[in-house]
């Protein structure tokens, strides 16, 4: 076993192209644990299928790891299916190489059986990939440690490995690809990094705890700051998005990270997903000082009835309080919403619209309906309401859209609030791309859409 080729299959570029971070963690970990191996990353965002084929033939890998991040666009107003491309890619890989094919990734981990059956890799790894991949390599090399690799089940000729989240991998080395970093910095205006894995909450529709686990595992804050400084020093990167499912869990860890960032004088701006609850002025001030410029709140509704129905565990008053703290401190904030999900009615929409007027200098990104995913509470609800069959594998996207919900009426009400509502079918993404490419703007940029 000498060469490993990692392929990022993602070609979706909305809202902007996303650096294949999972593969950089995998590469870093493989090189640390098995330094005799050569590891390369190739990226479908940058290379055509033919170019990928050529890279495979030239590199002659022994193992090919294929990362499947998105399965569909998760947007009911623009339904997309990426599996067909993945199928073509697998055909190309098989034609170009006899290497073992291993599949993993966030999107894959939601549907391991169906995808393994369709794409027929030799192995697939559910969830966090680092340790499981090393165990698999050892297993293939027939080393002693190979006993630790647990084949969960077989789908056809594919063995599915699901080891769960493997305890604490707190010091991960992220091997950023020199040639990819420049491309992403130019086309997305940011890079990304993770500070923790896992989410303990239990929102009815959400897959994040299923992909990453419920137990929160923080990554070494010194290492994180080091990685950020390296990005800045080597590539001039001064904006990153922390990809944590929810950033504001683990207060003492976050305080430590922020303090280290301040001490290091990194001067790197950052954004992250936050839960609009439990924020306080003092902590937020420190985050801001450490570089926090943008918060994407996973709010989902401005109506308390819906917040309960969605299982969010916070109230609209929490949303107002969190927003006001950001406003006072001059941190840009946007609210991401799910309108028309479980329990939505004309009344709850009306309440969301009225309440939206209490949130100032911000922008709202509503999605319509909830993508139904396997092993979520929403799936059970949808089955019990006869919306889907219990046997539906849900790989073809199905949305839960409440019967008492009307998109056009909702859009009309939204525009009457005078607030910045950006629905997923609005053409604003093209404008943002323009700002990134032509005007060389960095960061999330939705602050240009906000209204008072």
């Amino acid at each position, binding site marked *: 076993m000498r060469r490993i080729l990692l392929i990022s299959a993602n070609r979706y570029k909305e809202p902007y192209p996303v650096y294949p971070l999972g593969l950089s963690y995998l590469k870093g970990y493989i090189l640390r644990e098995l330094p005799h191996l050569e590891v390369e990353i190739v990226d479908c965002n940058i290379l055509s299928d033919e170019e990928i084929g050529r890279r495979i033939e030239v590199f002659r890998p022994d193992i090919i790891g294929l990362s499947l991040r998105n399965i569909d666009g998760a947007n009911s107003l623009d339904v997309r299916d990426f599996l067909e491309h993945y199928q073509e890619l697998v055909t190309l890989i098989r034609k170009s190489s006899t290497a073992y094919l291993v599949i993993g990734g966030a999107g894959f981990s939601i549907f391991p059986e169906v995808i393994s059956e369709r794409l027929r890799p030799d192995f697939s790894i559910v969830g966090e990939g680092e340790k499981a991949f090393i165990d698999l390599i050892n297993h293939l090399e027939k080393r002693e440690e190979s006993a630790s690799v647990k084949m969960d089940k077989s789908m056809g000729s594919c063995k599915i490995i699901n080891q769960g989240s493997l305890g604490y991998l707190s010091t991960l080395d992220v091997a950023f690809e020199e040639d990819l970093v420049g491309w992403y910095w130019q086309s997305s205006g940011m890079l990304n990094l993770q500070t923790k894995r896992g989410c303990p909450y239990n929102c009815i529709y959400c897959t994040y705890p299923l992909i990453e686990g419920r137990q929160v595992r923080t990554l070494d804050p010194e290492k994180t700051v080091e990685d950020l400084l390296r990005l800045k020093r080597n590539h001039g990167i001064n904006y990153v998005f922390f990809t944590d499912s929810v950033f504001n869990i683990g207060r003492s860890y976050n305080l430590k990270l922020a303090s280290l960032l301040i001490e290091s004088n990194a001067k790197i701006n950052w954004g992250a997903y936050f839960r609009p609850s439990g924020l306080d002025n003092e902590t937020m001030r420190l985050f801001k000082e450490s570089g926090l410029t943008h918060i994407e709140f996973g709010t989902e509704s401005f109506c308390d009835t819906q917040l309960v129905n969605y299982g969010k565990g916070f109230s609209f008053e929490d949303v107002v309080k969190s927003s006001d703290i950001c406003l006072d401190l001059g941190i840009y904030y946007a609210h991401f919403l799910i309108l028309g999900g479980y329990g939505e009615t004309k009344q709850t929409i009306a309440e969301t619209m009225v309440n939206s007027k209490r949130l100032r200098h911000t922008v709202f990104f509503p999605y319509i309906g909830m993508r139904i995913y396997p092993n979520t509470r929403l799936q059970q609800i949808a089955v019990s309401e006869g919306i889907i069959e219990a046997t539906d594998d849900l790989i073809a996207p199905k949305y839960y859209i409440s019967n008492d919900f009307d998109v056009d009426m909702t859009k009309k009400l939204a525009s009457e609030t005078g607030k*910045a509502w950006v629905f997923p079918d609005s*053409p*604003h993404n093209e*404008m943002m791309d*323009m*700002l990134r490419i032509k*005007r060389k*703007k960095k960061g999330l940029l939705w602050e*240009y*859409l*906000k*209204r*008072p």
Partner: protein
Amino acid sequence: MERQEIISRLSAILAEEFEIDPSLITGEAPLMETLELDSLDLVDVVVIIEQNFGVTLSAPDFQGVKTFDDFFNLIENKLNG
């Protein structure tokens, strides 16, 4: 910055960025139609102004802005006020 300086700098920048004949930029000419902008493109104007003049506009600032004169007034007020 003097009003005349604002007008000449702004006219030159807008003509170049939106690739139009500078002589079309006159005080009474309609801003949006002349530059062929829709409401979304205003974001681009905001960034151009920010990058060249260091002031940040927001969507509501454009309320009531119809002609280039209105726009020059807006920038003058932001810069001097």
